């Protein structure tokens, strides 16, 4: 009962504060230029509370303390995560933000971290460049890599972009956290991990073999299955189960490279034209064949109903033409390199004979509101049942061209990470889906027959700077700050050693795209002070002052 009281009081304070603040400041707060020679302004690190992620407030505090070494007053400010998003992404009203940019598979392609995070056009309400970075040189390469369809040439541009982004330091990558997942080696074998997802990935799903038991792999999840509608999927967790039932044209492979899937092969005809050969002999779960008709239908349907996740990319598609029973030609309106990984590698093919009647013949007016309780896909698993909030079961679709080695998967929902860990320790479950808290992983390492490890991940914890607020508007200042963050301490003491020190925004784990010449800044207070001194900053009785 107590929680409720506190909640209400905080709520009153919160709403009052927000209304007050918005009346005084308004959306267009203008920041005065630094007074030459004045003391450098005190600042705050906004971050989430320990309830959401115990790591974040701890790291923010450690960083704030470390910044005192260069005579700069900084305080950690952990607040509810929704408010983080509101203040930073929506209102751009913050100084520094400590946040995790997770390793979703859509982020393996460098476009998100290079273009969306750094391009000046993305400094808008809801955009990813909440840093406000506006660097014409970065803008140029960020756009160039997006438009270059030749993968080798694009890689060169991405390498160059990483150097520029690292130099600009709109954000400091603090640590690449490992993807911590567990499985029981006495139950399953041939467990294939994937970049950013560890042993909870699709590649694990179709490759693992059951050593003992009824052939089904019991997979523990800390959150329930959300939905079964491939047209309404709007965040990456929703894709994680749907992708067993539905096939995209390509899949992101275990190492992050694209693997032709329902499209057997493809040919880039020119910058704007792509020919796809659809795999022959594929069947829908109801036994009907999958053809080029279905592929074209998928594009048209998702475009017509504005698929929330793909609509922006679909707008770049000019036409999809059927060129044979198993081939299509896709014409783009403008060249867009992430087209294959981010659209063809994600959008699920849907059967025309089912979806052409939706929403007309069902009781909803918009396919986004359709529950799709008996999904007909072409994927390696078909759905047996879903008891909402409790568990679901999928079984191998034997007619698939890449049938799973297990009989199927049962996904079981637990109330917390702790319950997931206990279920695996007791042998109720064979493995987990998504990340497991590092502290629990360390406990599970002591249990016989449990493999609990950190796997490579391209996501990271980062400290982002509001690059339009002095002193953070000065690249030299940001670079100095990057040399002060105690990365090693954070990794050892707060992240249980299950992380690697951060450097480039494209993680080393993302082998093809990572530029190895971009190195992590080591913790070096003297170097930081030298950078500041060279830029004209001075110290008076230990406090940092702006250049005169």
């Amino acid at each position, binding site marked *: 009962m107590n929680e409720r009281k506190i909640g209400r009081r905080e709520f009153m304070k919160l709403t009052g504060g927000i209304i007050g603040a918005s009346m005084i400041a308004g959306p267009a707060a203008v920041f005065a230029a630094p007074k030459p020679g004045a003391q450098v302004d005190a600042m705050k690190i906004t971050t989430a509370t320990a309830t959401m992620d115990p790591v974040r407030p701890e790291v923010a505090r450690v960083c704030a303390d470390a910044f005192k070494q260069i005579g700069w007053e900084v305080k950690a400010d952990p607040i509810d995560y929704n*408010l983080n*998003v509101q203040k930073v992404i929506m209102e751009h009203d913050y100084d520094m933000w400590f946040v995790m940019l997770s390793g979703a598979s859509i982020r393996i392609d460098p476009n998100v971290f290079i273009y969306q995070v750094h391009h000046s056009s993305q400094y808008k309400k809801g955009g990813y460049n909440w840093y406000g970075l506006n660097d014409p040189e970065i803008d140029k390469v960020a756009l160039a890599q997006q438009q270059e369809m030749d993968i080798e040439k694009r890689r060169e541009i991405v390498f160059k972009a990483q150097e520029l982004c690292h130099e600009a330091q709109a954000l400091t990558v603090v640590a690449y956290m490992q993807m911590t997942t567990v499985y029981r080696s006495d139950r399953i074998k041939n467990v294939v991990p994937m970049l950013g997802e560890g042993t909870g990935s699709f590649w694990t799903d179709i490759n693992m073999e059951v050593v003992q038991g009824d052939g089904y792999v019991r997979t523990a999840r800390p959150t329930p299955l959300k939905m079964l509608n491939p047209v309404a999927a*709007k965040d990456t967790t929703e894709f994680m189960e749907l992708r067993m039932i539905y096939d995209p044209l390509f899949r992101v492979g275990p190492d992050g490279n694209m693997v032709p899937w329902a499209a057997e092969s493809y040919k880039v005809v020119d910058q704007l034209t792509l020919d796809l050969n659809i795999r022959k002999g594929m069947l829908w779960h109801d036994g009907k064949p999958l053809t080029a008709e279905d592929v074209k239908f998928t594009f048209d349907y998702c475009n017509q109903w504005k698929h929330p996740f793909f609509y922006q990319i679909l707008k770049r598609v000019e036409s999809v033409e059927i060129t044979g029973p198993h081939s299509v030609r896709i014409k783009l309106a403008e060249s867009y390199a992430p087209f294959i990984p981010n659209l063809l590698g994600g959008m699920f093919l849907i059967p025309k004979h089912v979806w052409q009647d939706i929403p007309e013949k069902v009781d909803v007016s918009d396919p986004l*509101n359709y*529950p799709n309780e008996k999904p007909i896909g072409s994927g390696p698993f078909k759905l047996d049942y879903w008891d909402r909030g409790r568990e679901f079961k999928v079984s191998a679709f034997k007619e698939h061209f890449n049938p799973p080695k297990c009989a199927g998967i049962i996904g079981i929902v637990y*109330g917390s990470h702790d319950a997931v860990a206990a279920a695996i320790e*007791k042998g*109720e479950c064979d493995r987990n889906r998504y990340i497991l808290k590092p502290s629990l992983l360390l406990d599970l390492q002591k249990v016989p027959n449990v493999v609990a490890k950190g796997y490579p991940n391209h996501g990271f914890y980062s400290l982002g700077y509001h690059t339009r607020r002095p002193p953070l508007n000065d690249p030299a200042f940001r670079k100095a700050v990057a040399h002060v963050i105690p990365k090693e301490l954070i990794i050892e003491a707060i992240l249980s050693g299950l992380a690697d020190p951060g450097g480039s925004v494209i993680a080393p784990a993302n082998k093809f795209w990572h530029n190895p010449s971009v190195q992590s800044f080591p913790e070096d207070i003297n170097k930081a002070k030298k950078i500041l001194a060279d830029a004209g900053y001075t110290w008076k009785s230990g406090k940092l002052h702006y250049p005169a």
Partner: protein
Amino acid sequence: MQEYIIRRILYTIMTIFAVATILFFIFRVMPGDPTAQVISPALDEAAQARLKEAFGLDKPLIVQYVLYLKNLVTLNWGRSYTTQHEVFGILKYRFWNTIFLMGAAMSFTLVVGAGLGMVMAWKRGSALDVGSTVSALVLQSAPPFVTGILFLMILSYRLDLFPTGGMATPGMRLATGIQMLFSKDFLHHLVLPTITTAFYYLATPMLIMRDSMLEVTGSDFIELAQAKGLSPNRVMMKHAARNALLPVFTVSSVLIGFALGGQVIVEQVFSWPGMGQLMVEAASSHDYPVAQATFLLLAALVIFLNLISDISYCYLDPRISVGGGKH
């Protein structure tokens, strides 16, 4: 009497209406753009606009409110924003799961609580009396997430007597209805959450029963019964306890109301797919229709229980008179 009952029912309806209105607005007065609470800000603007359209959030607030009230009355509670299922269907399934757990826990609490309280008062000052009082108070001070996790640690993880959570063994589909209620697997899963809830609330009916028993045992009619030469057990059960039960009955409806609210924690600890867990899920995934409906249903349930206890009280205790009637 009838007038009183009608008045109480009208008040109840008004209260539920007020709760519904507060619920509607409370989600929408969160700081910033109200739709940002529903639709992830991590999506770009076009996607957000698309989702707002699908969910009807692009309409003005007042229109949404009128629609909401209309749907409320017609029991057409809309569809979940995350699963696209009808809210009514989701609630129906989750509601019974919670009721099974609550039913078991509250029966345990009331029967054991009242029984113990009765014996304690009868043997006032004995080791049983003191011991039960102290342990009940200790249990009442320990929040369910502590006792629940302790039970899990000892009885499940260490001794392996009970499962770690859920309603059934993974991979075993539950039979429906009565069959499920009597399946061994289900009952096995029911034990730990039941005693966790029951222990937390045990002290209330127990101590009230004890007090009320002590009061009753001082009455003349008990002395008379004893003087008649009835056996002490008969006096305790038939004469004292019967009359002492009334306050326990009153408090039970309040208690069940509290317990329904506190169920959120127990269900979370034991991964029980009931309304409490649904509330957490819906609130954290910004699923308005489901969150509103769950909160409303729980509120309505508590209000309804109060109504029942108020009305039944006039029948159970002839000394109570309502509406200024004279005896």
